[in-house]
């Protein structure tokens, strides 16, 4: 077991992130939260302190805007300089139809899910590489494993982020910095409430427990959660393209 007790969470108010933070708070972690809404961050902070977090700092910024990254990173360096884990947990999944018909929406999806994520992780990667320690974890998606008719814009952005993490993992390996790609299946959060069958999606608390376990223990480089998705996706990846292109899911 690797002891990690100081964590930076990017996108701290996302549905999965709040559950992860709760689990970490119970174990007495020090947390630094980055999210957009100062009010939500304040509510989260109060909750996590009561649940046992040792310290909770928060910084309100829009991670999708790369010009704000330097200020975020500065804040982290001043407030929690010896952080050992970074968890990137933000993302956006808009209506696929809209992303197909509006280039603005398409570019915004890529900006949020991929471009800005790589930019902020690059800052943290350089720092951890220099310190030769720590862990970078990012939440991508099983949707990034294969381009599907119904969700390929979100899927391609998350898939690209998975590839980026794969490369980053290899780059940081010599420095002893771990990089974990977290690929959740569909989870019951605000992001997915509008989808059909949302009631059957995974419980975010369960997904969060698996993420925490991955952060704290030596774990596979790629975490599928719930675990069954590792097997489902290995099947999905095997379907020949000539057949796959005819499937409408």
């Amino acid at each position, binding site marked *: 077991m690797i002891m990690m007790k100081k964590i930076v969470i990017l996108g701290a*108010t996302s*549905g999965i992130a*709040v559950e992860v933070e709760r689990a970490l708070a119970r174990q007495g972690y020090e947390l630094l939260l980055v999210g957009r*809404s100062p*009010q*939500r961050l304040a*509510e*989260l902070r*109060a*909750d996590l302190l*009561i*649940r*046992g977090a040792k310290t909770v700092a928060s910084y309100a910024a829009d991670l*999708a805007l790369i010009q704000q990254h330097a200020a975020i990173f500065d804040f982290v360096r001043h407030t929690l300089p010896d952080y050992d884990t970074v968890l990137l947990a933000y993302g*956006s999944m*808009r*209506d696929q139809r*809209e992303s197909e018909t*509006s280039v*603005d*929406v398409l570019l*915004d999806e890529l900006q*949020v899910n991929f471009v800005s994520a790589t930019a902020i992780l690059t800052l943290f990667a350089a720092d951890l590489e220099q310190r030769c320690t720590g862990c970078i974890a990012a939440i991508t998606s099983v949707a990034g494993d294969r381009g599907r008719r119904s969700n390929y814009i979100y899927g391609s952005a998350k898939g690209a982020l998975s590839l980026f993490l794969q490369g980053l993992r290899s780059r940081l390996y010599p420095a002893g910095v771990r990089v974990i790609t977290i690929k959740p299946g569909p989870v019951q*959060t*605000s*992001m997915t*409430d*509008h989808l*059909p069958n*949302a*009631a059957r999606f995974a419980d975010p608390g369960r997904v969060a427990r698996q993420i925490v376990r991955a952060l704290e223990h030596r774990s596979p480089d790629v975490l599928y959660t719930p675990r069954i998705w590792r097997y489902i996706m290995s099947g999905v990846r095997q379907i020949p393209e000539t057949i796959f292109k005819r499937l409408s899911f």
Partner: protein
Amino acid sequence: MPGQSAVALRKQPAALSPTTQVLSWGRYPKTAHAGVHKPAWNDQVPEILQTAAPDSLLPYGLGRSYGDSCLNAGRGLIDCKRLNRFLGFDESSGLLRSESGVSLSDIIDVFLPRGWFLPVTPGTRFVTVGGAIANDVHGKNHHCAGTFGSHVRQIALHRSSDGLVTCSSNENADMLHATIGGLGLTGVISWADIQLKRVAGPWIDADLVPFQSLRSFLDLSRESDGRFEYTVAWIDCFSGKNLRGIFFCGNHAADSGKEFHAKRGPKMPFVLPAWMLNRYSVKAFNNAYYRLHARKTGATVLPYDSFFYPLDSIRQWNLLYGKQGFLQFQCVIPENNLAAVEELLDRIAHSGMGSFLGVLKQFGSAPSVGMLSFPRPGLTIALDFAMRGERTLQLMQSLDEIVQQSGGALYPAKDARMNPALFEASFPRWRSFVPYIDPKMSSSFWRRVTGAQ
């Protein structure tokens, strides 16, 4: 969501899920809903309220109300489960500020290890703070602590008409008294300040006493209420006039240093076929239960969860009652009317339709704080009836008559079928409650018992 700008869209609206069927704990009635809002943050609630049609919404917590008081057939619900944050805690006084979707279970998990417990707890820990307030729930300590609502110091209420309203005994006190026991109709509770209680640890010094008549129950109750903080009785509803049962009483134990391990019980894996619950199987169960406990009588130390929440140890026990679900009957009968209690027990025994787990408790004399609170001085009886169609409804109707004649009342949180006349008799003040209802709120229960639209 067409027509919105990209940045505005990134602000995720609280989505209306297309879920149609939402059930209450009794799984009767089966109602379809137009949609369920699931706000994850309090700042999303005002928008939901403002954009809704009049009489179209109802806050929903963990769905542990048995009947239709937590349902809104054909209309919308606001699922408050994700509004589950603690916002503040004063370690010296035990005053907790929590959002309305926090469950009592969560409060216990976080605060019992620090020596604090709920001031009042119902028989399940899986209810939300909002639900506990909206139904002004009571527990085994009603005779000394009153209802949950009497430990709520302050609330903030989202109202569609006048925004976030703070209510306490000094400020908007009437709105506080309407909201306590107000069945969710006065608005969505944003947060509530609850006074927790100091305890030494997770153990209960319990005492079990078997009894063989209503008289001896009353004697036990009278004699124990002064010595024990918690008292309740289980009754065999097949025993009728020769009532038998087990009297449970307890106090928080001094810290013994004994280690406590929470255990997670089994889960009811499927809906039990209806024929498996019949008068023979239930009689056999009640017999076995009585004999088992009659043998274990005397003082014993129990973990708090098996003392307060024996049913929570089987998750989803409501599936035991089969596809059609079940109805619960909980009434209070003024104490000087023992004949009515006996008649009620007799009728249930003769019907052969009663089920296990009948509960009998003597309420204390403290007046409840809510305008529509159920607890009042007298004897309260709670029983389950598997839903078997018309004959179940007829039996319960005949029980209603006894309750009404005795000057008693029925508990809305448990009800799915009482008629408007009995509601009127149970809550004669309901008309003075009406002005406090939020114009956007309504419920299946409310429309049924008041004829509101």
